[in-house]
């Protein structure tokens, strides 16, 4: 059966009902995205395939916890986020903080779709050059927004932080990228 036109959420409902065959479609749809997300977020290529495989295994095992009235992609990215964070912790590259100051207060987050599209187009070209200069929490939000093209609300669901925090992290990430580009004498935003 051809599932290409079937939305993720409908496929998830079929999977929950016991149609195991549809899971292959999920893997086809998301494996390239998750490999790219993992490679950029973890700044490495080794073991990524193993981690992504475990992400799909975990998604399959926990599919009954997915609410089909919600979007599927943030749910899957959330599983991937947890797997990548665990991989970072395993390699002691992530500071063990009790809480994140970015989530302390409420921040205004306004997303202008037209400006966002222009910004995305500019950033996609240059984001690779300075990504490694960013702390993981900023690197991840840049990858999800500019490369995976998730919106603020979806990123908030993936990272489980308030939507305003996504805006704050993105702004700080861009400032840090700008500083990194200045240091490397790379032209920013053009």
């Amino acid at each position: 059966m051809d599932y290409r036109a079937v939305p993720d959420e409908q496929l998830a409902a079929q999977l929950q009902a016991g149609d195991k065959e549809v899971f292959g479609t999920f893997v086809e749809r998301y494996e390239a995205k998750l490999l790219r997300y993992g490679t950029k977020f973890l700044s490495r290529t080794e073991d990524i395939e193993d981690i992504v495989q475990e992400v799909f295994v975990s998604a399959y095992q926990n599919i009954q916890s997915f609410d089909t009235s919600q979007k599927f992609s943030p749910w899957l990215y959330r599983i991937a986020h947890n797997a990548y964070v665990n991989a970072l912790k395993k390699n002691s590259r992530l500071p063990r903080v009790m809480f994140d100051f970015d989530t302390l207060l409420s921040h205004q987050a306004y997303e202008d779709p037209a400006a966002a599209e222009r910004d995305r187009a500019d950033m996609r070209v240059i984001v690779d050059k300075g990504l490694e200069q960013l702390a993981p929490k900023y690197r991840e939000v840049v990858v999800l927004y500019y490369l995976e093209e998730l919106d603020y609300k979806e990123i908030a669901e993936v990272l489980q932080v308030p939507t305003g925090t996504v805006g704050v992290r993105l702004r700080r990430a861009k400032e840090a990228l700008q500083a990194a580009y200045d240091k490397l004498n790379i032209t920013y935003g053009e």
Partner: protein
Amino acid sequence: MENKHNNIKDAVLARINTGEISMRPHVYFTLRLCALACVALLVLAVSIVIFNFILFSVHASGRENLLMFGPRGFASFIQFFPWWLLLIDALLVAGLQYLVRTFQFGYRIPLLYMLAGLLVLTVGLGLFVDKVTPLNDLLEVQAHGGHLPPGVGNFFDHARRPPRPEEGVCRCTVVSIAGNTIVAEDHNFGTTTLVTIVLPPNEAQATTSGLRVGDNIFVVGDEDGGVIHAFGVRRDDIGNKR
């Protein structure tokens, strides 16, 4: 790259088809959510009971009187306040916010707002339990009868006891008044002790005015050789009701 992708897909599907991995049933997630909610409610209940006990112990032991005795009384109040119980309560509230953040609605609320909300909830319900419900009196009666578990029982059994006279605090009954000296009986800690209280000549917060033999009083001062040089004396209404 395409080959690698097929490897992931094939590997995952093979593990599914051989039964190596299987879906967790929906009931597993429902039960986990219920268990989490129960733990969160339990932590909330314990934090409310602890805050309620802090309020109860402060007024039942008469320590709230210290706040009427000016800066020195306030300093004594700070000294005798059960800070360690407040610390435990704060840790419980911090743990509670961690639990609440695991729910879908929880992470959407900024941390500071959630902590403030949980503190207001704990303090508000703690005040409500202390001021409106008879829970503390019931628990105290149960504690006196030895019907509560040892930890909780000890707390409520000793809630009315103020610090010892050696610490300059006395909750006692007036035996005699002569000039600026009061002799009083302290009935705490299972024994009756006579305590001499010397009042300063001109101190509005430490005067014999209005005191009579038989009155229960709350006294705070500097203890020296069995004599309390008081800087605060007050009729103890709670003590009188006992």
